[in-house]
């Protein structure tokens, strides 16, 4: 028993090292034992049982604790590229100006274009570019949001929007410390999107159907969209909104006020 396998809690289990036997018992028992069988001689199998998102989730909890300490409510805003997150956010800031103190964390792979569009509306905007040399992360994670919090005056705001990277896949996987998730969907994306991107649609507390001013010009079947959404997320609230005409924005603001 020469080596030690240190556990996170600092304790050293009394089975630090398990010599390989050829008992291929599968399935993991409890956290300290696990499946200790090895595949070949010359190797030692060590139980780990750690969630890959543990580190992200720890930072998300730290973010959430900071938000709570400052009395800030937080919305994670997600959608595909072009569904209208930034335009919805802009119209939201216009309407909340002088009523609610708002901050924005703006996630984009490159450029400050979206952040620039939100300037001058009384909100403090912190940009996070996710470019990392590999072509850019496709989502915001909790450490990225944490790195932006130094530039968000939590003392001076009541509400924080985290505008995620436009993407219907990855952002759904990462808790960033938010209190609610809002998804923006544009009817031009087609009725089947909830079935194609079920994880994203399942994670949303509210689905904002944006650009409803376009509906008369489209063949999209909104009844079918709602049925598809209900199949993957029976409890999601649906709001019909046009950031262009202002239709439905009051209901959206009511939802935001209740976060």
């Amino acid at each position: 028993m020469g080596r030690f396998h240190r556990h996170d809690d600092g304790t050293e289990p009394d089975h630090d090292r398990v010599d390989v036997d050829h008992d291929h018992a599968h399935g993991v028992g409890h956290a300290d034992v696990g499946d200790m069988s090895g595949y070949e001689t010359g190797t030692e199998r060590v139980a780990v049982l750690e969630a890959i998102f543990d580190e992200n989730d720890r930072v998300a909890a730290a973010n959430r604790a900071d938000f709570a300490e400052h009395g800030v409510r937080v919305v994670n805003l997600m959608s595909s590229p072009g569904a209208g997150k930034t335009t919805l956010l802009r119209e939201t800031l216009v309407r909340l100006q002088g009523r609610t103190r708002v901050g924005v964390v703006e996630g984009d792979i490159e450029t400050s274009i979206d952040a620039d569009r939100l300037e001058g509306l009384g909100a403090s905007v912190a940009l996070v570019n996710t470019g990392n040399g590999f072509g850019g992360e496709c989502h915001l994670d909790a450490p990225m949001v944490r790195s932006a919090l130094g530039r968000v005056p939590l003392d001076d705001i009541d509400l924080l929007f985290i505008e995620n990277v436009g993407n219907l896949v990855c952002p759904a996987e990462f808790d960033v410390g938010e209190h609610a998730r809002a998804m923006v969907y544009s009817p031009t994306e087609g009725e089947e999107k909830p079935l194609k991107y079920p994880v994203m649609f399942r994670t949303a507390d509210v689905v904002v159907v944006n650009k409803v001013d376009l509906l008369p010009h489209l063949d999209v079947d909104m009844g079918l969209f709602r049925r598809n959404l209900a199949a993957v997320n029976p409890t999601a609230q649906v709001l019909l909104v046009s950031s262009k005409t202002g239709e439905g924005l009051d209901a959206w603001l009511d939802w935001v006020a209740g976060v």
Partner: protein
Amino acid sequence: MHELSLCQSIGQIVRRHAEERRVTVVHLKVGQLRQVVPDTLVYCWGIVNEGTTCEGSVLDVEHVPAAIECRDCGASTLLEQMRMSCGSCGSSAVDVTAGEELLVTSIELQEA
């Protein structure tokens, strides 16, 4: 999609447990509801491990099917499609009981 950052997280977990020893196999559990493409994961694993004690190690991915349990009738349903309704009574009052796993279960280390 985010397999590269997943691999970086997996590498951190594995190396913390391996303590400088050479890693030969990493066993993972990946639930069906996690949007992970196994082939991409394996490809990224090779990239992020160059020059580390994980270089050349094998990712062994155990796939966990998704399942829901009905709050009304108690029946369990395996999810073949992502339809959140009970396969027995049709209720949509269901909880996911499996398929969201994403964890490193164990690692195999070379004997020194």
